[in-house]
């Protein structure tokens, strides 16, 4: 019984930590399928986390906060789109700029709104993301530990399905993928390549913003300087790992989540394992998996290449 509960605990924590990565990885899936590389997801996730925590603290409404977080990520992504789509910028360089701007703006505004602190004030427990299944199962039972999650966790998995549906079953999805594979072909068929790319890039920022808020409104209850550190990059790795598909990215994010879950779980037991070495496991695992499986898989054919319309 105890072992079952431990398992439940690990699964529960894994899901909670996987959710922010899933949002952000889905953002990566969107933008890169349209042919725009976005390593600025990290920065967009950070500003999402900050705005989420701030709006959540001041308004007391977690849903409003969640939406504002997406909006903030989307605004930063809009800048990335202006550079990459309209001005054919080097997409990696612009992404680096986003990674300075996102955290820079977050900490700057944090100091402005929170009396010079680089940490937002904690959101009261009853104003955090709700847990829709709270109280359905007996407290600390296996099912409770697994399923009594924040709404953002359930939303993350719903979003996986939505992104999959959009990309592979709808008109706009067909266009997004066409633009990422062969923009000139799309152009000759009268598709507005720039518009499609703008849409995909902005959505990627919105999703990354959600991912940040899933950290600051659910996994923890405030924003601080080290909250995101590197998760945007991990999500990016998960997306490549998942071969640029929503479902594949989800599995990769779950792998990272499980590793995180193990770290937290073992940290609370008497088992003598260095938490530092445990924390290393997902990264080592990713390297090994990349070596053995993914080597030859390539992304969308025109990924990372600026498209210039009137160029001979």
């Amino acid at each position, binding site marked *: 019984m105890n072992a079952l509960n431990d398992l439940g605990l690990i699964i529960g924590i894994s899901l909670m930590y996987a959710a922010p990565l899933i949002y952000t990885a889905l953002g990566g899936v969107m933008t890169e399928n349209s042919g725009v590389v976005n*390593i600025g997801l990290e920065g967009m996730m950070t500003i999402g986390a900050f705005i989420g925590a701030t709006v959540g603290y001041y308004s007391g409404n977690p849903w409003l906060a969640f939406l504002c977080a997406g909006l903030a990520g989307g605004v930063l992504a809009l800048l990335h789109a202006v550079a990459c789509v309209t001005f054919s910028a080097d997409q990696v360089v612009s992404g680096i700029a986003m990674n*300075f701007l996102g955290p820079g*703006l977050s900490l700057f505004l944090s100091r402005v709104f929170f009396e010079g602190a680089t940490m937002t004030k904690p959101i009261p427990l009853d104003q955090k993301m709700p847990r829709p299944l709270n109280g359905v199962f007996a407290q600390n039972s296996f099912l409770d530990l697994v399923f009594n999650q924040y709404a953002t966790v359930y939303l993350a998995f719903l979003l996986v399905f939505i992104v999959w549906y959009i990309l592979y079953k709808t008109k706009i999805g067909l266009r997004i993928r066409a633009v990422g594979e062969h923009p000139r072909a799309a152009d000759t068929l009268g598709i507005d390549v720039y518009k499609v790319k703008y849409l995909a890039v902005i959505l990627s920022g919105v999703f990354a913003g959600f991912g940040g808020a899933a950290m600051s409104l659910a996994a923890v209850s405030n924003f601080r300087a080290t909250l995101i*550190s590197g998760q945007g990059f991990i999500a990016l790795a998960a997306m490549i790992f998942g071969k640029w598909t929503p479902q594949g990215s989800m599995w990769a994010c779950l792998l990272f989540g499980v590793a995180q879950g193990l770290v937290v779980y073992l940290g609370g037991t008497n088992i003598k394992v260095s938490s530092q070495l445990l924390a290393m496991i997902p*990264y080592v695992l990713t390297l090994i998996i*990349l070596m053995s499986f993914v080597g030859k898989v390539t992304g969308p054919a025109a990924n990372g290449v600026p498209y210039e319309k009137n160029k001979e």
Partner: protein
Amino acid sequence: MMKENRLKFTIIAILIGLVIGAIILLAVGYNPLEAYGIMIAGVFGSPKYISWTIIKSTPLILTGISVAFAFKTGLFNIGAEGQFIIGALVATLAGYFLHLPPVLHAIVALLLACLAAALWGGFAGFLKSKFGVNEVITTIMLNWIAFYLSNFLVYWDKFKRPNSEASQKILSSASIAFPKEFGSSLGSFFNAPVNFGFIIAILVAFLIKYVLNDTTLGYELRAVGFNKDAAEYGGINVKKNTITAMMIAGAISGLAGAVHVLGVTNEISILSAMEGNGFDGMAVSLIGGNSPIGCIFAGLLFGALKYGGYKIQPIMGAPSEIINIVIGIIVFFIAMPKMIEGLTTIRSRRKRGGEVERSK
């Protein structure tokens, strides 16, 4: 001609960054002139400030060169961060555990740090050539592995300094600081941990410039960087060069970490988040036009902004993170020379009184 343009665009981007930074400060109620004034005074106000600026710039110059070097060879070294950590870690280990005469000890520690970081970076190159795994992803993973490895070793009881969150300090024989007696005669410039690091950074910049432009290795690396298909066709071993390039890039970032430890901190701390030396290096490389010499100036600029920027917080209460925003904006505009070009040509056309042509 192109180089001139590049310099012009960079300067314009820096100005735009500072102007937008000023607007943001103004928007939240701070006087930007006062802020920039404090920064300038904070950098040039005393010889000690200048030496601190140089000290802060040194690792950035080196990680900048590391990223720039990789760029020139067609690789994107996001791994500078992890290579820096490995360099710092190995330099500290060597500085504490080895017992060697002064000077020699420092040299051995520097070389070991370079070697370890070269292997660290080279591993990403190896994964790319052997398995075709994109170096951006592998270096991100390696950054985190380095991060936890460093923390793991600092927690090791033989290495951890009791009652602290840091390692043991290096032996004085491994230090690359300027000798104390040397400084006292020269005033407050030496009231900071002035060390040989900056001189090493400048030497490395010129060495890398020489390697890239004047050696067969540099020719091979650049050929691979610009067009690996043509290089391969011409008989150049692309895989070997990819590994070599990442090893050299790694060594330079590792040197940055080593110099920082042996010259300034004398220890490494338990990291709670990435310190950003490698990520800042990317910005330095970009502002420096991906040229080793350019990185010296960009690194100094970056170091000055950061060091000067920290001072606006205590003095006037304005958030020092404005510096990260300014740097982000500079990099953002450097990413799109087309926009700056557009801005400048529209302006010059208006000056001539001509009509602005609309191509589409």
